[in-house]
Protein backbone atom coordinates (compact mmCIF):
# COMPACT_ATOMS: atom_id res chain seq x y z
CA UNK A 1 0.00 0.00 0.00
CA UNK A 2 1.73 3.11 -1.21
CA UNK A 3 0.98 6.77 -0.90
CA UNK A 4 -2.05 7.72 -3.01
CA UNK A 5 -3.41 10.99 -4.26
CA UNK A 6 -6.95 11.29 -5.63
CA UNK A 7 -7.81 14.29 -7.73
CA UNK A 8 -10.49 15.55 -10.00
CA UNK A 9 -9.71 16.66 -13.52
CA UNK A 10 -12.13 19.20 -14.96
CA UNK A 11 -13.69 18.39 -18.30
CA UNK A 12 -11.85 20.07 -21.16
CA UNK A 13 -13.45 23.01 -22.89
CA UNK A 14 -15.88 21.99 -25.57
CA UNK A 15 -15.26 18.28 -25.07
CA UNK A 16 -17.25 15.51 -23.47
CA UNK A 17 -16.23 13.47 -20.44
CA UNK A 18 -15.36 10.55 -22.68
CA UNK A 19 -13.05 12.63 -24.84
CA UNK A 20 -11.23 14.14 -21.89
CA UNK A 21 -10.65 10.68 -20.45
CA UNK A 22 -9.27 9.60 -23.79
CA UNK A 23 -6.92 12.58 -23.88
CA UNK A 24 -5.56 11.67 -20.45
CA UNK A 25 -5.11 8.01 -21.28
CA UNK A 26 -3.33 8.85 -24.49
CA UNK A 27 -0.90 11.08 -22.63
CA UNK A 28 -0.27 8.27 -20.17
CA UNK A 29 0.38 5.79 -22.92
CA UNK A 30 2.81 8.18 -24.58
CA UNK A 31 4.68 8.34 -21.29
CA UNK A 32 5.07 4.58 -21.43
CA UNK A 33 2.41 3.33 -19.06
CA UNK A 34 0.92 -0.13 -19.55
CA UNK A 35 -2.76 -0.85 -19.35
CA UNK A 36 -3.53 -3.35 -16.63
CA UNK A 37 -7.25 -3.88 -16.54
CA UNK A 38 -10.08 -1.91 -14.97
CA UNK A 39 -10.99 -0.58 -11.57
CA UNK A 40 -14.14 0.47 -9.78
CA UNK A 41 -14.73 2.53 -6.65
CA UNK A 42 -18.27 2.99 -5.46
CA UNK A 43 -19.96 4.71 -2.57
CA UNK A 44 -23.36 4.28 -0.96
CA UNK A 45 -24.87 6.72 1.48
CA UNK A 46 -26.75 5.82 4.65
CA UNK A 47 -28.74 8.20 6.83
CA UNK A 48 -29.10 7.59 10.50
CA UNK A 49 -32.70 6.64 11.01
CA UNK A 50 -35.16 9.10 12.50
CA UNK A 51 -35.73 7.05 15.65
CA UNK A 52 -32.16 7.25 16.78
CA UNK A 53 -31.97 10.99 16.18
CA UNK A 54 -34.81 11.84 18.48
CA UNK A 55 -33.53 9.64 21.30
CA UNK A 56 -30.02 11.02 21.24
CA UNK A 57 -30.79 14.61 20.36
CA UNK A 58 -28.11 14.77 17.71
CA UNK A 59 -28.36 15.78 14.10
CA UNK A 60 -28.39 12.95 11.60
CA UNK A 61 -25.04 11.71 10.48
CA UNK A 62 -24.23 10.48 7.07
CA UNK A 63 -22.40 7.23 6.75
CA UNK A 64 -20.70 6.14 3.58
CA UNK A 65 -20.06 2.51 2.70
CA UNK A 66 -17.44 2.19 -0.03
CA UNK A 67 -15.86 -0.58 -2.02
CA UNK A 68 -12.60 -0.53 -3.96
CA UNK A 69 -11.70 -3.14 -6.56
CA UNK A 70 -8.07 -2.81 -5.47
CA UNK A 71 -9.09 -4.44 -2.18
CA UNK A 72 -11.81 -6.84 -3.31
CA UNK A 73 -12.31 -8.56 0.04
CA UNK A 74 -12.78 -5.37 2.01
CA UNK A 75 -15.51 -2.91 2.70
CA UNK A 76 -14.93 0.60 4.07
CA UNK A 77 -17.32 2.42 6.32
CA UNK A 78 -16.70 6.10 7.01
CA UNK A 79 -18.29 9.11 8.56
CA UNK A 80 -17.69 12.56 7.17
CA UNK A 81 -15.10 13.78 9.66
CA UNK A 82 -14.93 10.66 11.66
CA UNK A 83 -13.12 7.39 11.72
CA UNK A 84 -12.78 5.00 8.84
CA UNK A 85 -13.59 1.35 9.40
CA UNK A 86 -11.96 -1.29 7.24
CA UNK A 87 -14.18 -4.34 7.37
CA UNK A 88 -14.79 -7.67 5.71
CA UNK A 89 -16.97 -7.90 2.60
CA UNK A 90 -19.80 -9.22 4.76
CA UNK A 91 -20.24 -5.71 6.14
CA UNK A 92 -22.79 -5.03 3.41
CA UNK A 93 -25.03 -7.78 4.70
CA UNK A 94 -24.60 -6.41 8.20
CA UNK A 95 -25.90 -3.05 7.00
CA UNK A 96 -29.02 -4.75 5.75
CA UNK A 97 -29.55 -6.13 9.23
CA UNK A 98 -29.08 -2.65 10.67
CA UNK A 99 -31.97 -1.29 8.61
CA UNK A 100 -33.52 0.10 11.72
CA UNK A 101 -30.62 2.38 12.44
CA UNK A 102 -29.23 3.24 9.03
CA UNK A 103 -31.31 3.82 5.96
CA UNK A 104 -29.93 3.54 2.47
CA UNK A 105 -30.33 6.58 0.28
CA UNK A 106 -30.34 4.68 -2.96
CA UNK A 107 -30.47 7.71 -5.21
CA UNK A 108 -27.12 8.92 -3.90
CA UNK A 109 -25.09 5.95 -5.06
CA UNK A 110 -22.04 7.24 -6.90
CA UNK A 111 -19.19 5.33 -8.50
CA UNK A 112 -16.02 5.79 -10.55
CA UNK A 113 -15.04 3.26 -13.19
CA UNK A 114 -12.14 3.23 -15.56
CA UNK A 115 -8.79 1.76 -16.60
CA UNK A 116 -5.75 1.02 -14.50
CA UNK A 117 -2.26 1.83 -15.75
CA UNK A 118 1.13 0.96 -14.43
CA UNK A 119 4.29 3.02 -15.03
CA UNK A 120 7.43 1.86 -13.21
CA UNK A 121 6.44 2.06 -9.53
CA UNK A 122 3.35 4.19 -10.17
CA UNK A 123 -0.25 2.98 -10.45
CA UNK A 124 -2.57 5.41 -12.20
CA UNK A 125 -6.33 4.97 -12.38
CA UNK A 126 -8.36 7.24 -14.61
CA UNK A 127 -12.08 6.88 -14.09
CA UNK A 128 -15.40 8.42 -15.06
CA UNK A 129 -17.53 9.38 -12.08
CA UNK A 130 -21.14 8.46 -12.66
CA UNK A 131 -24.21 8.98 -10.55
CA UNK A 132 -27.05 6.91 -11.88
CA UNK A 133 -27.02 7.04 -15.67
CA UNK A 134 -25.15 10.29 -16.09
CA UNK A 135 -21.43 10.95 -16.10
CA UNK A 136 -20.55 13.75 -13.71
CA UNK A 137 -16.79 14.12 -13.80
CA UNK A 138 -13.35 12.54 -14.03
CA UNK A 139 -11.30 11.14 -11.17
CA UNK A 140 -7.59 10.40 -11.31
CA UNK A 141 -5.85 8.36 -8.64
CA UNK A 142 -2.05 8.14 -8.56
CA UNK A 143 -0.34 5.69 -6.23
CA UNK A 144 3.39 5.50 -5.60
CA UNK A 145 3.91 1.98 -4.31
CA UNK A 146 7.35 1.97 -2.64
CA UNK A 147 6.77 4.83 -0.24
CA UNK A 148 4.53 4.47 2.81
CA UNK A 149 5.10 7.80 4.52
CA UNK A 150 2.79 10.40 3.06
CA UNK A 151 4.71 13.62 3.37
CA UNK A 152 7.99 12.16 2.12
CA UNK A 153 7.10 11.73 -1.47
CA UNK A 154 4.58 14.49 -2.14
CA UNK A 155 7.04 16.38 -4.34
CA UNK A 156 7.82 13.25 -6.29
CA UNK A 157 4.11 12.54 -6.81
CA UNK A 158 3.47 16.09 -7.89
CA UNK A 159 6.25 15.98 -10.44
CA UNK A 160 4.83 12.80 -11.90
CA UNK A 161 1.30 14.19 -12.03
CA UNK A 162 2.50 17.32 -13.76
CA UNK A 163 4.00 15.22 -16.52
CA UNK A 164 0.62 14.02 -17.71
CA UNK A 165 -2.00 16.25 -16.07
CA UNK A 166 -0.30 19.55 -16.80
CA UNK A 167 -2.13 22.47 -15.23
CA UNK A 168 -4.71 20.36 -13.48
CA UNK A 169 -2.27 19.05 -10.88
CA UNK A 170 -3.98 19.24 -7.50
CA UNK A 171 -2.66 20.66 -4.27
CA UNK A 172 -1.62 18.52 -1.34
CA UNK A 173 -4.60 16.49 -0.05
CA UNK A 174 -5.92 17.32 3.40
CA UNK A 175 -5.33 13.80 4.70
CA UNK A 176 -1.59 14.28 4.25
CA UNK A 177 -1.65 17.16 6.65
CA UNK A 178 -2.91 15.03 9.50
CA UNK A 179 -0.61 12.10 8.88
CA UNK A 180 2.72 13.37 10.32
CA UNK A 181 5.02 10.52 9.33
CA UNK A 182 2.65 7.70 10.16
CA UNK A 183 2.14 4.93 7.67
CA UNK A 184 -0.32 5.56 4.90
CA UNK A 185 -3.31 3.23 4.90
CA UNK A 186 -6.04 2.34 2.36
CA UNK A 187 -8.57 4.10 4.58
CA UNK A 188 -6.92 7.40 3.71
CA UNK A 189 -7.49 6.73 0.01
CA UNK A 190 -11.17 6.12 0.68
CA UNK A 191 -11.44 9.36 2.62
CA UNK A 192 -10.04 11.17 -0.40
CA UNK A 193 -12.55 9.45 -2.69
CA UNK A 194 -15.37 10.36 -0.35
CA UNK A 195 -14.38 14.02 -0.41
CA UNK A 196 -14.15 13.90 -4.19
CA UNK A 197 -17.58 12.33 -4.56
CA UNK A 198 -19.13 14.87 -2.22
CA UNK A 199 -17.61 17.70 -4.20
CA UNK A 200 -18.94 16.31 -7.45
CA UNK A 201 -22.36 15.77 -5.95
CA UNK A 202 -22.54 19.40 -4.89
CA UNK A 203 -21.13 20.66 -8.17
CA UNK A 204 -23.92 19.67 -10.48
CA UNK A 205 -27.33 19.13 -9.08
CA UNK A 206 -28.74 19.05 -12.62
CA UNK A 207 -26.75 17.08 -15.15
CA UNK A 208 -25.97 19.22 -18.19
CA UNK A 209 -27.10 17.62 -21.42
CA UNK A 210 -23.93 18.56 -23.29
CA UNK A 211 -21.74 16.46 -21.05
CA UNK A 212 -23.22 13.12 -22.09
Amino acid at each position, binding site marked *: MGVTCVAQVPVAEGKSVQQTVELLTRKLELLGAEKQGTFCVDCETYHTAASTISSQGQTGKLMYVMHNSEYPLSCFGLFENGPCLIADANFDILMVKLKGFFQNAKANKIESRGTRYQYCDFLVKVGTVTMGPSARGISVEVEYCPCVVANDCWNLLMEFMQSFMGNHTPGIPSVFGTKH*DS*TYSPGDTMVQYMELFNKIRKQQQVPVAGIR
Partner: protein
Amino acid sequence: MAEGVLSPGVNLEAFSQAIAAIQALRSSVTRVFDCLKDGMRNKETLEGREKGFVAAFQESLHSVSRDLGELERLSNLVGKPSENHPLHNSGLLSLDPVQDKTPLYSQLLQAYKWSNKLQYHAGLASGLLNQQSLKRSANQMGVSAKRRPKAQPTTLVLPPQYVDDVINRIDRMFPEMSIQLSRPNGTSAMLLVTLGKVLKVIVVMRSLFIDRTIVKGYSENVYTEDGKVTDHATTALLHYQLPQMPDVVVRSFMTWLRSYIKLFQAPCQRCGKFLQDGLPPTWRDFRTLEAFHDTCRQ
Protein backbone atom coordinates in the same frame (compact mmCIF):
# COMPACT_ATOMS: atom_id res chain seq x y z
CA MET B 1 53.84 -15.53 -55.68
CA ALA B 2 56.48 -16.11 -53.10
CA GLU B 3 56.21 -12.62 -51.54
CA GLY B 4 56.89 -13.99 -48.12
CA VAL B 5 60.25 -15.27 -49.18
CA LEU B 6 61.55 -11.95 -50.52
CA SER B 7 63.26 -9.58 -48.22
CA PRO B 8 65.10 -6.26 -48.65
CA GLY B 9 68.33 -8.17 -49.32
CA VAL B 10 67.17 -9.10 -52.78
CA ASN B 11 68.02 -6.90 -55.76
CA LEU B 12 64.74 -6.74 -57.57
CA GLU B 13 66.09 -5.26 -60.75
CA ALA B 14 68.75 -7.89 -61.09
CA PHE B 15 66.04 -10.42 -60.42
CA SER B 16 63.94 -9.25 -63.36
CA GLN B 17 67.01 -9.09 -65.55
CA ALA B 18 67.85 -12.62 -64.52
CA ILE B 19 64.38 -13.76 -65.55
CA ALA B 20 64.89 -12.12 -68.96
CA ALA B 21 68.27 -13.83 -69.19
CA ILE B 22 66.61 -17.18 -68.53
CA GLN B 23 64.23 -16.51 -71.39
CA ALA B 24 67.15 -15.61 -73.67
CA LEU B 25 68.96 -18.78 -72.67
CA ARG B 26 65.91 -20.85 -73.42
CA SER B 27 65.52 -19.32 -76.86
CA SER B 28 69.19 -19.86 -77.73
CA VAL B 29 69.02 -23.51 -76.63
CA THR B 30 65.92 -23.87 -78.78
CA ARG B 31 67.86 -22.40 -81.68
CA VAL B 32 70.61 -25.02 -81.20
CA PHE B 33 68.11 -27.82 -81.45
CA ASP B 34 66.37 -26.17 -84.36
CA CYS B 35 69.65 -25.92 -86.13
CA LEU B 36 70.32 -29.57 -85.53
CA LYS B 37 66.83 -30.50 -86.65
CA ASP B 38 67.11 -28.44 -89.83
CA GLY B 39 70.34 -30.10 -90.80
CA MET B 40 72.49 -28.93 -93.68
CA ARG B 41 71.33 -26.23 -96.04
CA ASN B 42 71.05 -26.72 -99.60
CA LYS B 43 74.33 -25.41 -101.12
CA GLU B 44 76.38 -26.25 -104.18
CA THR B 45 79.19 -28.36 -102.78
CA LEU B 46 79.12 -30.90 -99.92
CA GLU B 47 82.01 -29.06 -98.29
CA GLY B 48 80.15 -25.79 -98.37
CA ARG B 49 77.08 -27.41 -96.78
CA GLU B 50 79.13 -29.00 -94.02
CA LYS B 51 80.98 -25.73 -93.35
CA GLY B 52 77.75 -23.75 -93.23
CA PHE B 53 76.18 -26.27 -90.85
CA VAL B 54 79.14 -26.34 -88.49
CA ALA B 55 79.35 -22.52 -88.50
CA ALA B 56 75.67 -22.17 -87.64
CA PHE B 57 75.90 -24.84 -84.95
CA GLN B 58 78.97 -23.26 -83.40
CA GLU B 59 77.32 -19.87 -83.37
CA SER B 60 74.23 -21.13 -81.60
CA LEU B 61 76.36 -22.95 -79.03
CA HIS B 62 78.34 -19.75 -78.41
CA SER B 63 75.14 -17.84 -77.86
CA VAL B 64 74.05 -20.51 -75.37
CA SER B 65 77.26 -20.23 -73.40
CA ARG B 66 77.04 -16.40 -73.52
CA ASP B 67 73.54 -16.42 -72.14
CA LEU B 68 74.47 -18.92 -69.49
CA GLY B 69 77.38 -16.73 -68.40
CA GLU B 70 75.05 -13.70 -68.27
CA LEU B 71 72.60 -15.67 -66.19
CA GLU B 72 75.27 -16.77 -63.78
CA ARG B 73 76.47 -13.19 -63.35
CA LEU B 74 72.99 -11.94 -62.71
CA SER B 75 72.18 -14.74 -60.29
CA ASN B 76 75.18 -13.69 -58.22
CA LEU B 77 73.82 -10.14 -58.13
CA VAL B 78 70.34 -11.17 -57.07
CA GLY B 79 71.57 -12.22 -53.66
CA LYS B 80 70.18 -14.65 -51.18
CA PRO B 81 66.90 -14.17 -49.42
CA SER B 82 67.60 -13.59 -45.73
CA GLU B 83 67.84 -16.77 -43.79
CA ASN B 84 65.93 -15.53 -40.82
CA HIS B 85 62.56 -15.03 -42.46
CA PRO B 86 60.05 -15.46 -39.71
CA LEU B 87 57.72 -17.97 -41.27
CA HIS B 88 59.84 -21.12 -41.39
CA ASN B 89 57.56 -24.02 -42.08
CA SER B 90 54.41 -21.98 -42.54
CA GLY B 91 56.13 -20.09 -45.32
CA LEU B 92 56.15 -23.29 -47.27
CA LEU B 93 52.34 -23.28 -47.09
CA SER B 94 52.35 -20.09 -49.10
CA LEU B 95 53.75 -21.98 -52.03
CA ASP B 96 50.55 -23.99 -52.33
CA PRO B 97 49.05 -22.93 -55.65
CA VAL B 98 45.49 -23.99 -54.98
CA GLN B 99 44.31 -20.76 -53.34
CA ASP B 100 40.58 -20.95 -53.96
CA LYS B 101 39.74 -24.25 -52.35
CA THR B 102 42.16 -24.26 -49.43
CA PRO B 103 43.12 -20.67 -48.56
CA LEU B 104 45.23 -21.96 -45.71
CA TYR B 105 47.98 -19.40 -45.86
CA SER B 106 45.82 -16.30 -45.82
CA GLN B 107 43.70 -17.72 -43.01
CA LEU B 108 46.84 -18.51 -41.10
CA LEU B 109 48.06 -14.95 -41.47
CA GLN B 110 44.76 -13.58 -40.24
CA ALA B 111 44.76 -15.90 -37.26
CA TYR B 112 48.20 -14.70 -36.26
CA LYS B 113 47.29 -11.05 -36.62
CA TRP B 114 44.17 -11.56 -34.51
CA SER B 115 45.97 -13.39 -31.75
CA ASN B 116 48.66 -10.71 -31.61
CA LYS B 117 46.05 -8.01 -31.26
CA LEU B 118 44.28 -10.00 -28.58
CA GLN B 119 47.46 -10.37 -26.60
CA TYR B 120 48.13 -6.65 -26.84
CA HIS B 121 44.65 -5.69 -25.69
CA ALA B 122 44.74 -8.20 -22.86
CA GLY B 123 47.97 -6.67 -21.68
CA LEU B 124 46.44 -3.20 -21.67
CA ALA B 125 43.32 -4.41 -19.87
CA SER B 126 45.21 -6.20 -17.15
CA GLY B 127 47.31 -3.10 -16.57
CA LEU B 128 44.20 -0.98 -16.13
CA LEU B 129 42.43 -3.52 -13.96
CA ASN B 130 45.37 -3.94 -11.64
CA GLN B 131 45.19 -0.25 -10.81
CA GLN B 132 41.79 -0.82 -9.22
CA SER B 133 42.39 -3.83 -7.12
CA LEU B 134 39.23 -5.73 -6.29
CA LYS B 135 40.80 -8.24 -3.99
CA ARG B 136 39.55 -7.81 -0.50
CA SER B 137 41.95 -10.04 1.38
CA ALA B 138 45.15 -8.85 2.93
CA ASN B 139 47.29 -11.18 0.81
CA GLN B 140 49.40 -9.53 -1.82
CA MET B 141 49.56 -10.82 -5.34
CA GLY B 142 52.60 -12.78 -6.35
CA VAL B 143 53.58 -13.87 -2.88
CA SER B 144 55.24 -17.22 -3.25
CA ALA B 145 53.49 -20.34 -2.06
CA LYS B 146 56.11 -20.87 0.58
CA ARG B 147 55.40 -17.58 2.29
CA ARG B 148 51.63 -17.61 2.05
CA PRO B 149 50.66 -19.98 4.84
CA LYS B 150 52.60 -17.87 7.33
CA ALA B 151 50.87 -14.57 6.54
CA GLN B 152 47.27 -15.55 7.33
CA PRO B 153 45.05 -12.48 7.53
CA THR B 154 43.93 -12.27 11.12
CA THR B 155 40.87 -10.23 10.28
CA LEU B 156 39.16 -13.20 8.72
CA VAL B 157 39.14 -15.20 11.90
CA LEU B 158 37.37 -13.08 14.47
CA PRO B 159 35.40 -14.26 17.47
CA PRO B 160 31.65 -13.83 16.95
CA GLN B 161 31.38 -11.86 20.16
CA TYR B 162 33.61 -9.17 18.71
CA VAL B 163 31.45 -8.95 15.60
CA ASP B 164 28.35 -8.62 17.78
CA ASP B 165 29.94 -5.80 19.75
CA VAL B 166 30.93 -3.87 16.65
CA ILE B 167 27.45 -4.19 15.19
CA ASN B 168 25.80 -3.11 18.43
CA ARG B 169 27.99 -0.04 18.60
CA ILE B 170 27.06 0.92 15.05
CA ASP B 171 23.40 0.32 15.83
CA ARG B 172 23.54 2.85 18.62
CA MET B 173 25.36 5.35 16.44
CA PHE B 174 22.40 6.05 14.14
CA PRO B 175 18.99 6.56 15.70
CA GLU B 176 16.85 6.08 12.63
CA MET B 177 18.57 2.89 11.59
CA SER B 178 17.99 -0.35 13.49
CA ILE B 179 20.19 -3.39 12.99
CA GLN B 180 19.18 -6.91 13.93
CA LEU B 181 21.82 -9.61 13.98
CA SER B 182 21.18 -13.31 13.59
CA ARG B 183 23.24 -16.34 12.69
CA PRO B 184 20.96 -18.75 10.87
CA ASN B 185 23.75 -20.79 9.26
CA GLY B 186 27.01 -21.16 11.13
CA THR B 187 29.21 -18.28 12.08
CA SER B 188 28.40 -15.82 9.32
CA ALA B 189 26.28 -13.01 10.64
CA MET B 190 23.16 -11.89 8.84
CA LEU B 191 22.03 -8.35 9.54
CA LEU B 192 18.57 -6.97 8.92
CA VAL B 193 18.90 -3.21 8.70
CA THR B 194 15.66 -1.23 8.82
CA LEU B 195 16.05 2.32 7.63
CA GLY B 196 13.21 4.41 8.99
CA LYS B 197 10.14 3.50 6.95
CA VAL B 198 11.94 3.57 3.65
CA LEU B 199 14.04 0.47 3.15
CA LYS B 200 14.95 -2.88 4.57
CA VAL B 201 18.42 -4.18 3.81
CA ILE B 202 19.69 -7.70 4.33
CA VAL B 203 23.47 -7.80 4.77
CA VAL B 204 25.31 -11.11 4.80
CA MET B 205 28.72 -10.96 6.41
CA ARG B 206 31.79 -13.14 6.57
CA SER B 207 33.33 -12.33 9.95
CA LEU B 208 33.50 -8.52 9.66
CA PHE B 209 33.59 -8.31 5.87
CA ILE B 210 30.37 -7.52 4.05
CA ASP B 211 29.74 -10.23 1.53
CA ARG B 212 26.42 -9.53 -0.07
CA THR B 213 23.51 -7.12 0.28
CA ILE B 214 19.90 -7.22 -0.82
CA VAL B 215 17.74 -4.12 -0.59
CA LYS B 216 13.98 -4.36 -0.29
CA GLY B 217 11.17 -1.87 0.07
CA TYR B 218 9.52 -1.36 3.44
CA SER B 219 6.20 -3.02 2.85
CA GLU B 220 6.59 -5.50 0.03
CA ASN B 221 9.03 -8.08 -1.16
CA VAL B 222 10.85 -6.92 -4.25
CA TYR B 223 10.58 -3.71 -6.23
CA THR B 224 11.99 -2.78 -9.60
CA GLU B 225 13.46 0.39 -8.19
CA ASP B 226 15.17 -1.50 -5.41
CA GLY B 227 16.67 -3.76 -7.98
CA LYS B 228 18.66 -0.63 -8.74
CA VAL B 229 19.43 0.14 -5.12
CA THR B 230 20.62 -3.45 -4.59
CA ASP B 231 23.10 -2.93 -7.42
CA HIS B 232 24.26 0.33 -5.89
CA ALA B 233 24.67 -1.32 -2.51
CA THR B 234 26.80 -4.06 -4.04
CA THR B 235 28.93 -1.39 -5.71
CA ALA B 236 29.30 0.31 -2.36
CA LEU B 237 30.46 -2.78 -0.54
CA LEU B 238 33.15 -3.24 -3.16
CA HIS B 239 34.12 0.40 -2.92
CA TYR B 240 34.60 0.64 0.81
CA GLN B 241 37.58 -1.62 1.36
CA LEU B 242 40.27 -1.72 3.99
CA PRO B 243 41.55 -5.22 4.66
CA GLN B 244 43.25 -4.27 7.89
CA MET B 245 40.39 -2.36 9.53
CA PRO B 246 37.07 -3.99 8.68
CA ASP B 247 35.09 -2.21 11.37
CA VAL B 248 35.85 1.13 9.74
CA VAL B 249 34.58 -0.37 6.51
CA VAL B 250 31.32 -1.49 8.09
CA ARG B 251 30.86 1.91 9.68
CA SER B 252 31.37 3.78 6.41
CA PHE B 253 29.06 1.39 4.60
CA MET B 254 26.33 2.01 7.18
CA THR B 255 26.83 5.76 6.92
CA TRP B 256 26.42 5.51 3.16
CA LEU B 257 23.30 3.38 3.59
CA ARG B 258 21.81 5.83 6.03
CA SER B 259 21.80 8.54 3.36
CA TYR B 260 18.97 6.61 1.73
CA ILE B 261 16.54 7.71 4.42
CA LYS B 262 15.65 10.58 2.13
CA LEU B 263 15.22 8.40 -0.92
CA PHE B 264 11.89 9.92 -1.85
CA GLN B 265 12.47 13.43 -0.62
CA ALA B 266 15.78 14.48 -2.13
CA PRO B 267 15.88 15.72 -5.70
CA CYS B 268 18.78 14.81 -7.94
CA GLN B 269 21.73 17.17 -7.51
CA ARG B 270 22.49 17.21 -11.20
CA CYS B 271 19.16 17.68 -12.95
CA GLY B 272 17.12 19.04 -10.07
CA LYS B 273 14.18 16.76 -10.73
CA PHE B 274 12.72 13.98 -8.66
CA LEU B 275 11.92 11.49 -11.34
CA GLN B 276 13.93 10.18 -14.24
CA ASP B 277 12.19 7.43 -16.21
CA GLY B 278 9.93 6.94 -13.25
CA LEU B 279 12.77 6.39 -10.76
CA PRO B 280 13.84 8.61 -7.90
CA PRO B 281 17.54 9.46 -7.41
CA THR B 282 18.85 6.07 -6.34
CA TRP B 283 22.60 6.73 -6.48
CA ARG B 284 24.43 8.14 -3.50
CA ASP B 285 27.93 9.47 -4.08
CA PHE B 286 30.51 7.60 -2.01
CA ARG B 287 32.30 10.67 -0.70
CA THR B 288 29.71 13.41 -0.50
CA LEU B 289 26.56 11.28 -0.01
CA GLU B 290 24.63 13.44 -2.48
CA ALA B 291 21.69 12.03 -4.36
CA PHE B 292 21.86 11.46 -8.10
CA HIS B 293 19.80 9.64 -10.64
CA ASP B 294 21.48 6.57 -11.96
CA THR B 295 21.64 8.15 -15.39
CA CYS B 296 22.82 11.50 -14.05
CA ARG B 297 25.89 10.37 -12.16
CA GLN B 298 29.02 11.70 -13.87
